């Protein structure tokens, strides 16, 4: 393999840490960058939540330091609120959760779990990180561009996104992020197909690898369509083409000088054709991590391995046929909404199957309530709420009332935040010993866990109450409309829960950075797990991971095999 000759010469600092070709360093680069973006994206929410709880009041402490594009004179103005909303969505999804789930964990642990020395194309892997980094910097720079950041939601619906300022740099940065994800997914697919260790057949593949493989296929087939849509919209803004501009548009009393003829719905179709597989890209890595931690924590083979892997693939294929359930009330023809309502209901079955298998793997187990296990266990009810509240949104009569209200925001935050983000945090606790050779502090971890869970529910559960009361989403000041006044107190409760949630992250951040250097040292397999990444030293050998490429003899989760002394038998031992 070409990685042998890399060790011969002593690597410079630049080659070792900045432009590294080692999938582990690239994984760590992704992890640190995406964690910083998650923190930044969450801080945007605190500004928005203050404006929602006390509309029009000056933002305490940092109000006067904010750039004029968000808050002139300490009080946030509507364009600033819309910019924060759009950037919060974009940063959290495209710069936070996906790079953490796919970029960081995928890059670091996919090669380890399949017993490979590195990714198939190390240079493309390094390029994908740096293109992602440039995309991130462009997104942040858009706050200081004249006209401010993007202001028409992370969905950037036309014609608003073409007529309002700030969208050009957003689209430009999006093309970078999409290119980075495409390069990454090519790498993952070829690595999973080609570089599996001898004996590692498809039915012995850990579920985390299954999840990453299906995620990479989703990214590969869905992202280019948004790339096409983004280029069309960029040209609409820059070159006065009219792909998405219908004829006869009158803005501010004057006709718009576009040739016209385009269709506003076309953008929604192109966008949601990507965005629905994208939400499964947010979810699948987290489900893979939960499967790993559950199998390890319950000390028994996961229940229904074939059903879960099959459900991943079924979700993967079907997620390309459900996108228009976001468009039931958008003027789409009703015949299409029948079709998409049916496919949406069918795709809810594999999710139910996965959660059923996770719950049934608790039966007959010997559960150890270690820290990662807490996160994996809480994923089940929390994702349960997220999934169940998807039912009334995928069902047209109830979606008529609930669409574009806070019910939708509650639904997807329960799935993404208390679902996959909690699972990703569990992944950090679970794989921290493998990445740094030290353990994170158990006591501070538990504090972080319980406070985060309570405050997350404090923010997201009232959203269902607001949604049923009919509070629309993306309102700068909800008190202007009479039907929002009754449930306005919930906004105050949610704002303080958000502030406390930010404070609850401090123990996690401190614990994370302190434990890298001062954490309690651990041997190679602290959780006594069976998958291949525990067969190499922690942190794994630079550039070649394993002394000798392991041979796989059995399934990924062989715990408590009858007739064996120890309660776990690793994959690479006969």
């Amino acid at each position, binding site marked *: *393999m070409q990685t042998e000759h890399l060790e011969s010469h002593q690597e410079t600092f630049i080659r070792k840490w900045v432009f590294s070709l080692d999938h582990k360093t690239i994984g760590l680069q992704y992890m640190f960058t995406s964690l910083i973006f998650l923190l930044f994206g969450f801080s945007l929410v605190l500004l928005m939540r203050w404006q929602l709880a006390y509309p029009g009041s000056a933002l305490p402490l940092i109000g006067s330091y904010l750039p004029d594009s968000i808050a002139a004179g300490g009080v946030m103005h509507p364009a600033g609120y819309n910019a924060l909303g759009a950037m919060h969505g974009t940063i959290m999804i495209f710069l936070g959760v996906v790079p953490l789930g796919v970029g960081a964990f995928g890059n670091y642990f996919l090669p380890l779990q399949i017993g490979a020395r590195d990714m*198939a*194309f190390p240079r*493309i892997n390094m390029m994908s990180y740096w293109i992602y980094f440039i995309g991130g910097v462009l997104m942040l720079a858009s706050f200081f561009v004249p006209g401010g950041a993007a202001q028409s939601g992370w969905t950037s619906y036309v014609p608003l996104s073409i007529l309002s300022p700030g969208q050009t740099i957003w689209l430009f940065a999006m093309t970078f992020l999409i290119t980075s994800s*495409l390069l990454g*997914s*090519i*790498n993952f*697919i*070829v690595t999973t*197909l*080609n*570089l*599996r260790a001898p004996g590692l057949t498809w039915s012995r593949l850990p579920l985390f690898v299954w999840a990453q493989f299906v995620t990479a296929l989703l990214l*590969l*087939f*869905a*992202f*280019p*369509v948004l*790339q*096409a*849509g983004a*280029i*069309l919209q960029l*040209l609409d803004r820059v*070159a*006065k*083409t*009219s*792909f998405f501009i*219908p*004829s006869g548009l009158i803005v501010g009393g004057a006709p718009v000088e*576009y*040739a*016209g*003829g*385009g*269709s506003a719905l*076309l953008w929604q179709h*192109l966008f949601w*054709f990507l965005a629905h597989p994208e939400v499964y890209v947010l979810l699948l890595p987290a489900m893979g991590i939960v499967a790993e931690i559950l199998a390890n924590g319950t000390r028994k083979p996961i229940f229904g391995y074939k059903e879960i892997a099959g459900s991943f693939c079924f979700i993967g294929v079907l997620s390309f046929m459900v996108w228009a359930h976001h468009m039931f009330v958008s003027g789409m023809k009703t015949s299409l909404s029948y079709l998409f309502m049916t496919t949406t209901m069918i795709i809810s079955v594999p999710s139910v199957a996965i959660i059923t298998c996770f719950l049934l793997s608790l039966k007959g187990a010997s559960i150890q309530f270690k820290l990662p296990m807490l996160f994996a266990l809480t994923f089940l009810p929390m994702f349960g709420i997220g999934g169940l509240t998807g039912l009334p949104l995928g069902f047209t009569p109830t979606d008529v009332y609930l669409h574009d209200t806070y019910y939708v925001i509650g639904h997807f935050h329960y799935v993404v935040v208390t679902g996959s983000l909690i699972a990703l945090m569990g992944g950090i606790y679970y794989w921290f010993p493998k990445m740094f050779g030290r353990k994170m502090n158990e006591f501070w971890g538990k504090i972080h866990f319980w406070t985060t869970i309570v405050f997350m529910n404090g923010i997201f559960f009232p959203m269902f109450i607001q949604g049923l009361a009919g509070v629309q989403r993306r309102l700068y000041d909800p008190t202007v409309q009479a039907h929002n006044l009754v449930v306005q107190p919930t906004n105050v409760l949610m704002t303080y829960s958000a502030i406390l949630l930010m404070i609850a992250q401090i123990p996690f951040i401190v614990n994370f950075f302190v434990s890298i250097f001062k954490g309690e040292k651990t041997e190679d397999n602290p959780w006594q797990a069976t998958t291949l990444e525990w067969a190499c030293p922690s942190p794994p050998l630079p550039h070649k991971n394993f002394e000798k490429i392991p041979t796989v003899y059995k399934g990924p989760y062989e715990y408590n095999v009858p007739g064996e002394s120890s309660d776990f038998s690793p994959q690479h031992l006969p």
Partner: protein
Amino acid sequence: MIHQPEAIAETVTGIPNGKLGMWVFLASEVMLFGGFISSYVVLRTGSSFFPIPAKELLGIPLATLNTFVLITSSVTMVLALDAIQKANQKGLIRNLAITILLGFCFLAIKSYEYPHKWHEGITISSNLFGSFYFTLTGLHGLHVIGGIAFNIYILVNAIKGCYTQDHYERVEYAGLYWHFVDLVWIILFPIFYLL
């Protein structure tokens, strides 16, 4: 049977990483051009204002010639690959050079066609047909430029003698990419010029 290079990496699927990677990349390109062409077809059938210029304005004879140029470049590319498979270094270099020349010829014809259309009043912002025409053929042109750069890189290596009968994967991957670029033009040509 074509001569398989010895250095098949010990991959599980038996396909070298590079070839699998190129095919996966081409799948994402299929989706990219698929997205564009679907938008074009959808708007052309459904848009309320989609004026289609008269056939004379489009310059069909020139475009047909352009299609010939690209098809011949595809053939010389595959002949180049066939040459190196028979360890014929000179054949590889000759065919590669012709492919690159034909690529430049394609771009030259395009760069003549664009101003000709601008004078006819078909610009990128004049109407939807113009917008789609210049966006799609422009993007395809960029892919042709990328393909030519890849081929020039291969030509330089071929002149230096890097490719032998047993190590010629890069030539194959450049060929795959070039055939894909030609394949996209074969779809763009009828939907823009003939329909």
